[in-house]
């Protein structure tokens, strides 16, 4: 999967698209791991163009979330399609992740915690 990446202030934004299943999960995991290794732990994941997410996809996001929170960072999700939102809802992951409607809102929500 192509994973576009950009930076606003000290927040990294990656965008996922298509189907995030067992076959693409590795790509996303590698991308997130490389960010975390570089101490970039304020991450927004834009899911505007993500059509489908499987449990393998959830696992990758959860694993990264656990890691960044250990380092006082966070992963915020933006622009979820209804189907993807439902998958998060069913697994109870909406309680874990901060989910925002817009990418800007997600980036801005970090500003309170930046010192």
């Amino acid at each position, binding site marked *: 999967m192509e994973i576009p990446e950009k930076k606003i202030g000290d927040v990294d934004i990656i965008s996922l698209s298509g189907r995030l299943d*067992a076959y693409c999960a590795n790509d996303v995991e590698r991308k997130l791991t490389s960010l975390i290794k570089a101490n970039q732990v304020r991450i927004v994941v834009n899911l505007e163009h993500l059509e489908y997410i*499987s*449990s393998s996809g959830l696992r990758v996001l*959860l694993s990264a979330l656990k890691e960044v929170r250990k380092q006082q960072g966070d992963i915020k999700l933006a622009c979820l399609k209804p189907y993807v939102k439902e998958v998060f809802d*069913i697994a*109870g992951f909406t309680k874990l992740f901060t989910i925002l409607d817009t990418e800007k809102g997600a980036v801005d929500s970090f500003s309170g915690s930046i010192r």
Partner: protein
Amino acid sequence: MNVSVADILIDLIGTACVVIVFAYVVTRTRFFTAILDKQFSFKNQLILILLFGALSIFGTYGGIELPSGAIANIRDLSPMIAGLVGGPVVGLGVGLIGGIDRYFLGGLTCLPCSLSTVIAGLVGGVVYKLRKGEFVLVWQAALLAAVMESFHMGLVLLIVRPYAEALAVVEKVSLPMIGANALGIALFALIIRNLIIERRTAAEKDKYRRELERREYEMETARGIQQSFLPDSPPQVEGFELAALSLPAWEVGGDFYDFIPIPPDKWGIVIADVSGKGVPAALFMALSRTCVRANVAGNSTACEAIRRANDLITQDAESGMFVTLFYAVLDPKRKHLNYVNAGHNPPLLLQGSAGNVILLEASGIALGVMDDIELEEKELELASNDIVVLYTDGVTEAINEKEEQFGEERLTAVITQNTNLPAQELIDKIKEEVTVFAQGQPQFDDITLVILKVS
């Protein structure tokens, strides 16, 4: 008779071609490959010495007699290559056969020619030792032959008298002999090197194939072990029908179901889906199943049992693994179902009386995500002909060639149209519908179904 240098060269090349055919055939014999594998048995060495000895003799007679009585030949090629392949003993053996034969042929250059043949075999053997048994490169073999033949010519000049005659012979044969021997040995070496590479590739292929077979065997065993974690058959519960099915997408999977007796007369019913697929999911499945089983019996409520199981699972849930799980306690006497839903897609309840379809939702979160979770426990009263269908998303997310999902609607439709079927047949029907729907598409996810039917 007027023999030109070109005539001699052409004849020698023709002879070299015979050598190549010989080389091709001999290198395919098991004695030759045995020597390549360093199996220096007496028999292997003797056969090689005889074969290459014959070739050396052929090298003499296949050569061309010059007007002076000297023979421009490729006799030295054979002992040298034999020495390079089989070491000093084989080289010397071949050299002796070729050399002695040449000696009894007589003629002006009899002594230096027979001597140099023996030395060629020894040189090949020494190079073999220096390279610790590794066969030379093609250009190295050619260079060695060229040097050896130059030495051969030097020996003629040194030994043969009168010197003028020796010089006349050397002038005529030195170039063709150096050229033909170098060319012949290069072609021979090329054939041997190709053989070595072919054999190495074949050996590697063999290794990978065996490794693959071992893994397949391992996965097959793992699959068997995982299947043994699932109930052999659903329990007989009075007033109810139970049936279940689990099909991993790969050899092993992350889905599981369970029927756990809760003394004195209740049953715990579990369906669960571990994140991911394959071996990691299968390992986590084994952990989750055991944790759930261990906590079901001792805890009074469904909520408490799963909360405790979660605490155990979370301790071991590295790298974001988690499991979604639906757990229900069936009280057959009161026809009650108490359930919690830990992030699993809600089972369907088809009410026999009204034909309504109800989703068994309850607030909760997948297990292994965090400690001390909150789970909502709900209670449900079952009536005759009610059907509860527990499933994993492999059922509803099976896709057809247009990438459409099987979906909840199709699942609901199959169930409502087949309410009269016994539980097991209803499962078979759903499986058939999913298979037909996803015809020809690879199965992406594990598929698991549990059906509870009230008689």
